[in-house]
């Protein structure tokens, strides 16, 4: 039951919609625009409206595409961040699903997500999609290693491979203070994973139209877009859990229920802070080219994260 409602799927889907709204609104305000204003107060329901509008649209599947993958790909793609979010502790130190080695599973989720995107793009068999997938894979090979190293750093510091253990170990000091480089690398890699500027190379609209999503329409597109927002929430939540002490914060009351509510508030505040950080970077930069991006990943981020791992090993 918890898995489906709070703090499970329903909760995180709502947060995903809220993230999209906040991203659009912040970007708009930074660019001197108004952003969504029509649907709901301050246009807060606009992402929801967009989602349901898309699902009600006719779905056009290109003739030469692989229908099997296009039919079953989006649910699997959606499952990746949705399951991943169940491993993030929200109301207390214990996540809904927990395992002593769940950090490894989270790493698997990254690869799985990229694999599903690749499969979906190839299955739709468009020219723009094909080029976009080439870029996506190249970008993925670039940011995967720094990302893994950045995720491993907190676990080295905590001496634990479970997210729960890492959160518990941050009782006295957050790891963002002990390993700031790892946090920075994680945020940059997250921008690449989410295909946000400056790494929106696989869906650069002025170059390759919609990127690997060009041929999607109707509910496929709706779910792919929702999945991207879920990944957004997932990566921010992971950053909160690994570097910002998860939902932990001052204990103010004796009542368990009230304290759980407080914990979720702490978590949400941190979550939106990380989300805000990501979309401020996104708004302030231009897109780089794929060669420049991979060069950045291999020559700057990978050595930096390796160095951070070394420092973490010494600190232990």
């Amino acid at each position, binding site marked *: 039951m918890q898995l489906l409602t709070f703090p499970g799927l329903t909760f995180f889907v709502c947060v995903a919609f809220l993230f999209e709204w906040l991203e659009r609104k912040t970007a708009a305000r930074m660019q001197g625009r108004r952003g969504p204003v029509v649907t709901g107060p301050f246009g807060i329901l606009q992402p929801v409206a967009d989602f349901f509008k898309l699902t009600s649209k006719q779905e056009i599947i290109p*003739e030469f595409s692989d229908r099997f993958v296009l039919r079953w790909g989006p649910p699997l793609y959606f499952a990746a961040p949705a399951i991943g979010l169940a491993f993030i502790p929200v109301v207390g130190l214990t996540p809904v699903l927990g395992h002593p080695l769940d950090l490894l599973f989270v790493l698997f989720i990254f690869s799985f997500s990229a694999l599903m995107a690749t499969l979906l793009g190839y299955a739709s068999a468009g020219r723009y999609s094909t080029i976009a997938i080439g870029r996506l894979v190249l970008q993925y090979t670039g940011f995967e290693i720094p990302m893994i190293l950045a995720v491993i750093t907190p676990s080295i510091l905590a001496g634990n491979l479970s997210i729960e253990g890492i959160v518990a170990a941050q009782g006295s000091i957050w790891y963002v203070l002990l390993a700031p480089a790892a946090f920075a690398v994680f945020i940059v890699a997250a921008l690449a994973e989410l295909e946000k500027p400056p790494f929106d190379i696989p869906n650069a609209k002025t170059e390759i139209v919609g990127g690997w999503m060009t041929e999607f329409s109707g509910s496929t597109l709706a779910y792919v877009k929702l999945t991207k927002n879920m990944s957004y929430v997932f990566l921010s939540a992971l950053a909160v859990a690994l570097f910002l002490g998860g939902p932990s914060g001052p204990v103010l009351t004796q009542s368990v229920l009230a304290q759980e509510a407080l914990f979720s508030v702490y978590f949400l505040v941190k979550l939106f802070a990380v989300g805000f950080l990501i979309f401020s970077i996104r708004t302030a930069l231009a897109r780089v080219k*794929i060669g420049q991006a991979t060069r950045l990943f291999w020559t700057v981020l990978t050595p930096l994260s390796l160095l951070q791992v070394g420092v973490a090993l010494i600190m232990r």
Partner: protein
Amino acid sequence: MSEATGSEKREAGAGLMEYSPEGLMPFGPVHPALKEPEYFKLTLEGERIVDVAPRIGYVHRGIERAAQDRTWVKNVYLFERICGICSFAHSIAYAQGVESLTEFVIPRRAKYIRLVIAELERIHSHLLWLGLVGHWTGFETLFMWIWKDREHVLDQLEAITGNRVHKSFATFGGVRKDLPEGIEPKLAQATKFVRERVKYYRQLMESEETLVVRTKGVGKIDQNIARRLCPVGPLLRCTGIERDVRVEDPYAAYDEIVPEVKTQTAGDIASLLALRLDEVEESCRLIDEAMEKLPKGDYKVLFPRAIPSGEAMFHVEAPRGELFYFVKSTGSTKPERVKIRTPTMANLLTAKEMLKGHTLADVPVVLTGMDPCFGCMDRITVFDPGKGKEWTVRGEALRKYGIEYYRRRAGS
């Protein structure tokens, strides 16, 4: 025959998709980077561009022909519709071409007003392009900011002419309206504002790393290429060649208010950015100077309906480069022939040269480095690769061909 299975269909489609090492990639006619339909067939090797084949003609509107059916003065407003951005350049190029066929002397005040509007238009056109560079390189914030600042210029245009884009302001013998009361302080304020913003954007474009790596050394052309392919306007000046119609063959009031020709030497997109920023500043200076020296007097003289017979050629420096008009009159109330050569037409081949050797990611910003206006330049040329020949189709033949083509298709 039984229904083809999915994999069979895919194999049949593989030929269509051309998954060859030298992939063909359509860029346009409808593409998010292009604001008007135009088709560029890119031959790619991975992401690297091997060849570019532009195909024009998607927005051919037959304006030159339409002009022959309209009276002389109506055509001013028809030609304005050729371009949504440099509309005033079109209308004064045509108006001055026609004026040169007659004996009338244009009042000095009208010349000054024409200069002010032309320069305001140059500012708004350049700002538009600078903003779009942000859009093409994925820097949406820059795009939104510059376009917001551009509104200040458009407001002034609206205050003077009544319209933001299609000003319908020029006419034979001058301009249609005098400057409104109390416009001087507003204009001065607008130019001051634009100057400040330009200073900021120059600093931003030089320091913002992601923008620098996307523009510096990208789309490079040198003076040899420029001399061979004859681009016009900023594309020529960014290689260091000093050409500007405003100075070489002054029209309007450019003989009294002389612009300084700005040049750059690098010949890449970054130098185009810097050049256009310089030109915006120069335009601000020209407007200020013109408003200071603005003479008193009439703003137009009355013009006859019929134009004496003769031929005239006229060129102006539109924001995108030299805009050329040829006008022929047989003494009637309608032009016999008007021929227009827009700057984009002259720049297209250079853009092709600029693209070679770059990657797909550079296409939007390089292709549009010339600030293209495809709607302005479209014409129809038929090329038959099978027979290896090329010919231009004239109106009536094209109409017949169209009717026949659709009849054949309906019949088969």
